[in-house]
């Protein structure tokens, strides 16, 4: 898809905004998304209307009649659920996913759904739907129920959140993980030292796995501090935390908190970077998923 966000419903979108902003990994790839911010320069010059744009527009979602939807809920279960699934996402008996159905998405008050229920649907190449005897009022209630579920759909075309599922990510072999750890990680890390009790610091294995892959576990949380030494043509050295570097400038934060910038021209001045993340970074192309899962299985034993 074109983007990381897909507004579907108002409520959910507001909730999602934070996720969206955080989720713009390497956002420049699409030209630096600029989320709509309310306020600034939003008013019509002549003093007329023009409201600040919301992060979500009054989009593809109608207002739900909750009482009607509640009446439709058991009717859906009776007449539709067996084929279309209790979650509306389709069933083994061939009923289609209603949450992505063009008929359902265009229906406003049962007017498109009712003829299908009454007459059935027999599209070539698709599972046939038999005609059913359901009153127009009941279909209207069912349509409202379906719309009420569609209204809880997630961003980027996602379905409504289902019941929580516990997924076990611990599929690795702890013994093999120890062997890998000793060979590849042991020169910098120690299970008796910086990683002592590491498993106790995480509430679930996925967070632990993410953390060690990102190099965030050891040495008191300082692992991500990148430092550099800049040596000018006279041999003078300046050391500090690396703030920024590109082909044209390098900026250091010095010990006293001040910053110093240097123009770069090719190899002048000389810049030496010390990046504690480098070892982790260099492992990225080298790991197999099995290595990763094994190491995680080993680290979770270090309570």
């Amino acid at each position, binding site marked *: 898809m074109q983007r990381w966000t897909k507004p579907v419903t108002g409520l959910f979108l507001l909730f999602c905004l934070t996720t969206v902003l955080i989720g713009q990994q390497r956002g420049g790839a699409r030209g630096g998304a600029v989320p709509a*911010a309310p306020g600034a320069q939003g008013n019509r010059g002549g003093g007329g209307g023009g409201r600040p744009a919301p992060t979500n527009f009054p989009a593809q979602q109608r207002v739900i009649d909750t009482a009607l939807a509640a009446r439709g809920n058991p009717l859906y279960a009776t007449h539709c659920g067996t084929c279309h699934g209790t979650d509306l996402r389709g069933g083994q008996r061939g009923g289609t996913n209603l949450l992505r159905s063009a008929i359902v998405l265009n229906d406003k008050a049962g007017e498109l759904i009712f003829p299908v229920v009454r007459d059935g649907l027999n599209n070539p190449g698709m599972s046939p739907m038999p005609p059913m005897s359901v009153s127009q009022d009941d279909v209207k209630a069912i349509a409202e129920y379906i719309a009420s579920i569609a209204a809880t759909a997630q961003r980027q075309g996602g379905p409504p959140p289902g019941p929580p599922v516990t997924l076990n990510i611990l599929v690795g072999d702890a013994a093999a993980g120890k062997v890998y750890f000793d060979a590849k990680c042991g020169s910098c890390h120690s299970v008796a030292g910086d990683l002592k009790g590491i498993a106790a610091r995480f509430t679930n294995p996925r967070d632990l796995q993410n953390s060690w892959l990102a190099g965030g576990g050891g040495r008191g949380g300082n692992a991500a501090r990148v430092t550099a030494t800049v040596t000018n043509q006279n041999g003078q050295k300046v050391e500090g935390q690396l703030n920024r570097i590109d082909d044209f400038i390098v900026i250091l934060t010095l010990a006293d908190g001040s910053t110093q910038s240097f123009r770069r021209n090719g190899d002048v001045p000389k810049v030496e970077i010390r990046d504690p993340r480098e070892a982790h*970074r260099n492992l990225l192309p080298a790991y197999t998923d099995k290595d990763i899962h094994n190491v995680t299985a080993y680290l979770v034993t270090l309570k």
Partner: protein
Amino acid sequence: MKPVKLLLVALLLLLPTLLVSQSSGGVDPASLLKPLADTWPTYSGDYTGRRYSALKQVDRNTVKNLTLGWIGRVNPALGAGTIVGGEGAEEWTPGNVSVRGAVLMVDGILYPTAPDHVWAIDARDGRQLWHYYWKTRGGTHIGNRGVGIWRNYLFFETPDNYLVSLDLKTGKERWHVEIADFDQQYFSTMAPMIIGDHVIVGTGNDLDAPGFLQSYHPETGKLEWKFYTVPMNPGDPGLETWPNLDAARHGGGFSWVPGVYDPETRLYIFGTGNPTPGYTGAGRPGDNLYTCSLVAVNVDTGKMAWYFQTSVHDTHDWDSAQTPILIDATINGQPRKLVSTAARNGYFYTVDRVTGKHVVTTKYGSYSNWAKGLRPDGTVEPDPLKEAIIPGSLVSPVEGGVANWPPPAYSPDTGFFYTKENNGFNVLYLTDPDPRGSMGLAGKQPFGLNLGSIGDFLTAIDPRTGKIGWRRKLYGGGGGGLLTTAGGVLFASDGSGNFVAYDARNGNPLWHTRINISNAPQTYMLDGRQHVLVASGDTLYDFLLY
């Protein structure tokens, strides 16, 4: 009168008409067949997608003297002169707008856009001439890739799926037509492509729905043809690559980036987006044609001539919608008509643009690790173990891809195809193991491994062999698109907030300025001087040589 005199008189009588039609301005669709030089009359400058300008004033030696002509901000505020159209109930006025598409330059006027907005800007000083604002019904407002111009008519797409036509001179609306179903959550961003008397429009979506490309008549707004990128009926070609018709009909393959056009074959060649559901392929086993493919359709009929799939059964949201490039080159002593594309998944392809037959497949994303190998037909076999899995799979690239919509460039002088190469890793966890698959882009949780750049590059590829000519290391990924010129310069973002002119032969920087660009740079002539134009958010920067 003698015949010669008669002819002379007739010519004299006709002269005013000829002059009027010549000075009436706008874009004659036939002029789009010419190589890119003085103006910027269509999305890529010309039909080839090369973004190679024949202009030479700015060259490897003079580029260091580029100087700022003007800075102008596009203003989304609804002023007294704003022309308001649209089907929405309210006037939403965004606080921020960003120019993230082409800014056409015709007759000394620039036409930048943002979702719901089109401006006409004087190319000599950045002053606004008119502003058109579309009252939206809503929907996804991610970006707008620019306008198309046919004679004195301008065309653009709105997020709520209208093709709107304006009078080029005044910005007054001529008509608007609905091009996709808002209720099915389509949203439209593409810059319309003008080819002869066709306005080619594409549309996006994130929900499971079919992708399509359409052609409208520039005068009447009447639909001429509609080409679905997935099978929609029993017996449709490609249906065998889906488990059933229902899956195909909800299979995605959206057409949201302009393609290229080969006048000799009358083929419009474009890339299609990812299949849906995006990350959970369980409900759609098979190759899923014609998603993530280069597709060639006859521009008059909308019938597909050939396809080449650049991401087979994609499960990573790696749309292959990026603009391809038409290249004429000699391979093994034979002159070839080729089309090349650097896909979001990290693979580079060259195919014969007449037949669609494969010529080259290579991996240009240095760390792309999702493939098992090549198939005999040159497509790449995906590794199912590199899909989102419950315990997590380590995958490169990340969702945004090695490249994305910001366009690449090709120089016939150097013979290089230039592209950004963004290399990143993430861990992909499957969170919805439902055998039916999830919907849209849901069902996964990515964890980005932001350990500093493992190596992002500006990369030059020989499209005849797929071999890397050079890589310029960048200190950050992303950034806008590319532009190259007969002056031997390659303009690009360095991914760290600098707009840089590189030597197209080797990637050495020649000039830079601290501008974080949001579109692809462009160049054109104005009053005898070569200008370079680029956008950063709502700000346009005009550079030139004095």
